[in-house]
């Protein structure tokens, strides 16, 4: 028990770990990530509900078709990731590399679409601290200060939540590239560490997908 995270008894009477130390560690990390994103989402809900009718109409600010497409891309990447994991468990490393490559590609597609979205937001002066929003609100006859406050609040929430999520996607992509590099260099093999690595980055990637599953409806649909 000294170096194993958890153990269980097998039918033959000997003991083996219920999880490797690395898997236990990644789940501990994901538990902290749950808290991190819960804080962001919780704060967003409170600000949104607390702002009432003065909250900007999100459909005018965000393109839900783009958000929806990105959701499908991320779900597809989760599916290819699970196939990569399945392949590595069977020691089919070429197949694993192929699925991991597709996952990486889909991850970059997600980031590309996100970059396109961000560029559009900056082009339309939709970012925290933009005075252009106040002028726009004044032109519409709205209470300029209030409109500025709420538009900026939404912009802050949007960029904070999607920005941190994008950083997590980027982190996952870096590890994917490292694994693909190991495969390309012929240094990826049957070592327990390598197999465990693919399983654990898979867990991380699925978690990133789950976060987006909540961010998409909260920011784009509701």
């Amino acid at each position, binding site marked *: 028990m000294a170096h194993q*995270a*958890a*153990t*269980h*008894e097998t039918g033959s009477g000997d003991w083996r770990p*219920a*999880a490797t130390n690395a898997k*236990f560690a990644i*789940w*501990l990390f*994901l*538990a*902290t990530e*749950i*808290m991190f994103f*819960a*804080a962001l*989402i*919780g*704060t967003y*809900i*409170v600000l949104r*509900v*607390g702002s*009432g009718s003065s909250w900007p109409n999100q459909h005018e600010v965000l393109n*839900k078709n783009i958000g*929806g497409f990105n*959701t*499908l891309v991320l*779900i*597809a990447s*989760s*599916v290819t*990731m*699970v*196939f990569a994991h*399945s392949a590595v*468990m069977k020691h089919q490393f070429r197949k694993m590399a192929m699925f991991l490559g597709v996952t990486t590609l889909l991850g970059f597609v997600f980031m590309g679409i996100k970059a396109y979205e961000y560029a559009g937001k900056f082009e339309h002066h939709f970012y925290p601290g933009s005075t252009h929003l106040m002028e726009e609100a004044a032109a519409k006859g709205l209470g300029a200060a209030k409109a500025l406050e709420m538009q900026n609040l939404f912009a802050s929430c949007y960029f904070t939540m999607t920005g941190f999520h994008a950083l997590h996607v980027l982190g996952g992509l870096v590890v994917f590239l490292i694994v693909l590099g190991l495969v390309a260099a012929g240094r990826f093999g049957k070592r327990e560490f390598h197999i465990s690595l693919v399983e654990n980055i*898979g*867990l991380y990637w*699925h*978690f990133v*997908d*789950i976060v987006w*599953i*909540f961010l*998409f*409806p909260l920011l784009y*649909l*509701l």
Partner: protein
Amino acid sequence: MSETRAEDHKEPPYLLIAVVLLTLTIGSFFISEQFESRLLTVLLVMCIATAKTTLVAGFFMHVKFEGAWLYALTIPAVILAAVLVSALLPDVAFLVR
């Protein structure tokens, strides 16, 4: 104690789960425009998000097949996350506009 490991189980039907996930995503997209009642829309869309999360966590992350250690690790975090959000709600309830 009879713990099991995720890899001890038969592989779930990943493609079928993927189709369900894609259908639910498209469904939530259309549901968000279908109902006049905002409360109903929020409830339905968030229920779909929760269902999708259950599928991803349960089958893709193999939570369904893991032992009790995983629940002991993650459930406190989920409870704390729920408490965190709930603790912020009085800020909304007592908001004076």
